[in-house]
């Protein structure tokens, strides 16, 4: 086991979107769709003719870099917080690492299984019972049915939902759904956990419980990349942080210091502009 090698090695990860529709520039038009199977030679030729380094500040062609040249390492057992304004590029970074969307440029080497908790209730179906949803959601997140069955009791206990487990999820409160969804995702067997704002649900007691759970995950050797607007929580959980601003990583270091930096930036921005 090459324990000295980082679990995540991100090198120059960049993602370009189109400003108008929020779609990536490689998106295809209808002409492209029809020529999709026949158009290979043309595309290859165009790629060869294209300048090797695309223009960076590209306001002119209606595109922007949601993430630009992001490089960092994540080692085993590290808990990395990602700080930044809305739209700074935090979620894009997580989506690239979770292989939901490909980068426009750059690479990332991932050593180990990735468990992504970007929106834990995404796989839920409201007509099905809690129990059925545990199996459904677990399967979508990458667990085998046998693994889920083995963990079912722990998942239900952790969610504190045993009374309602055979009730359709449409009768659940949003807090109950969120607890069950989080509980399923938290029982993923992955070396690397990508966590995006999922703790922003539920009451304070459950939040603390989740936080404890994440800490215990970190203690058991997992690495966590954690995105949250709740900076206090981020500071309590993470031992390292990166600060993203307009798609670029502008600082990498101790969470407390970065949060201070980020708050100063935000205050300065608020003083200049009308707050959103």
């Amino acid at each position, binding site marked *: *086991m090459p324990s000295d090698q980082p679990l995540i090695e991100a090198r120059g990860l960049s993602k370009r*979107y189109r400003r108008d529709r*929020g*779609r*990536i520039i*490689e*998106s*295809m038009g*209808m002409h492209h*769709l029809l020529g999709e*199977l026949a158009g290979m030679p043309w595309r290859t030729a165009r790629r060869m003719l294209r300048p090797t380094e695309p223009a960076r500040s590209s306001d002119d062609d209606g595109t922007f870099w949601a993430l630009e040249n992001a490089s960092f390492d994540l080692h085993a057992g590290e808990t990395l917080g990602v700080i930044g304004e809305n739209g700074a590029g935090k979620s894009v970074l997580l*989506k*690239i*690492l*979770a*292989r*939901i*969307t*490909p*980068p426009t*440029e*750059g*690479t*990332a*080497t*991932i*050593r*180990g*299984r*990735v468990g*992504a908790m*970007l*929106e834990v209730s*995404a*796989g839920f*179906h409201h*007509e*099905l019972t809690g129990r*059925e949803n545990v*199996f*459904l959601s677990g*399967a*979508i*997140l*990458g667990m085998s*049915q046998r693994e889920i069955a083995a963990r079912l009791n722990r998942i239900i206990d*952790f969610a504190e939902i045993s009374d309602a487990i055979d009730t359709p999820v449409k009768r659940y409160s949003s807090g109950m759904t969120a607890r069950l969804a989080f509980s399923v995702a938290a*029982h*993923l*067997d992955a*070396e690397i956990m990508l966590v995006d704002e999922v703790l922003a649900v539920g009451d304070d007691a459950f939040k*603390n*419980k989740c936080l*404890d*759970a994440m800490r*215990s*995950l970190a*203690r*058991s*050797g997992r690495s966590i990349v954690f995105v949250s607007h709740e900076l206090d929580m981020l500071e309590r959980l993470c031992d390292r942080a990166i600060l993203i601003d307009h798609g670029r990583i502008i600082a990498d270091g101790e969470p407390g210091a970065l949060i201070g930096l980020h708050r100063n930036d935000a205050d300065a921005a608020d003083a200049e502009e009308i707050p959103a």
Partner: protein
Amino acid sequence: MHSADAISTSGAGRFASTDPTITVIKPITGWPTLGLRELWRHRELVWVFATRDVRVRYKQRVAGMGWVILQPLLTMGIFSVLFGRMMKVPSNDIPYPLFALCGLVAWTYFVHATTKSTIILANSRDLLTKVRFPRLALPFGTLLGGLVDFAIGFGLLTVALAWYGLMPGWNLLALPAAVGLLIMTTVTSSLWLSATNVRYRDIENALPFFTQLLLFLSPIAYPATMIPDAWRWLYAVNPMSTVISVFRFALLGDDAAIHPAWFVSVAVAIVGCWTGILYFRRQEDRFADAV
């Protein structure tokens, strides 16, 4: 708090022995692989999606199975009266209701599965933008789930065969070929349409019109033998035309429609499946940004 312990799924020691899988994330280049091995690894997920569809369908509908039987039965009734009785459409010496039902059961699977899988990606926005899993599992799950309705329709057909006292002979051996060709045709339409519908929602609006056209271009209400021989080759470009004729051959012993043009359908289905998977895989990296 007890919760901290409750969450640990395995001891830290387990990771030391697990061979870490290395994944390299990079921009899209060139053409993808078929990805069937990844899909096979996630076959449980295909199954889970299929059972989700079936469960939800039967939970929401009071009539449940009744509706699945009623639909082809009603259509058969109308076809029998209009085409069989009034217009005297030939059915190659087979009782017309049986003749029509046989075509309808296969056709119903094709249309329902295609319609459902066409919208499945566009309707799974949360999943596509928030979770990583083999995207092919969604349409394939829908196709698999649809087989439940197909099986029920098939049961209905068996009852109808018994009612008319017809026993299929050795030509029943052709049934797997008929089912195989039906599934391949449905895979073709489902993959092409679902991947395209992520970006161009017009597809799902236009689909009912095109399935209706295809209904007339398939030998459901009439036998394929009514098509002039010279046109059979063109007619067979629609693989459903052959699927239905092969079904009738397998179950009803109707061998009048056998024609070398059937190979055109088989070729279309094979090429369609293969390019459909490639096209889908080519598109799937963009689903999260396009949906």
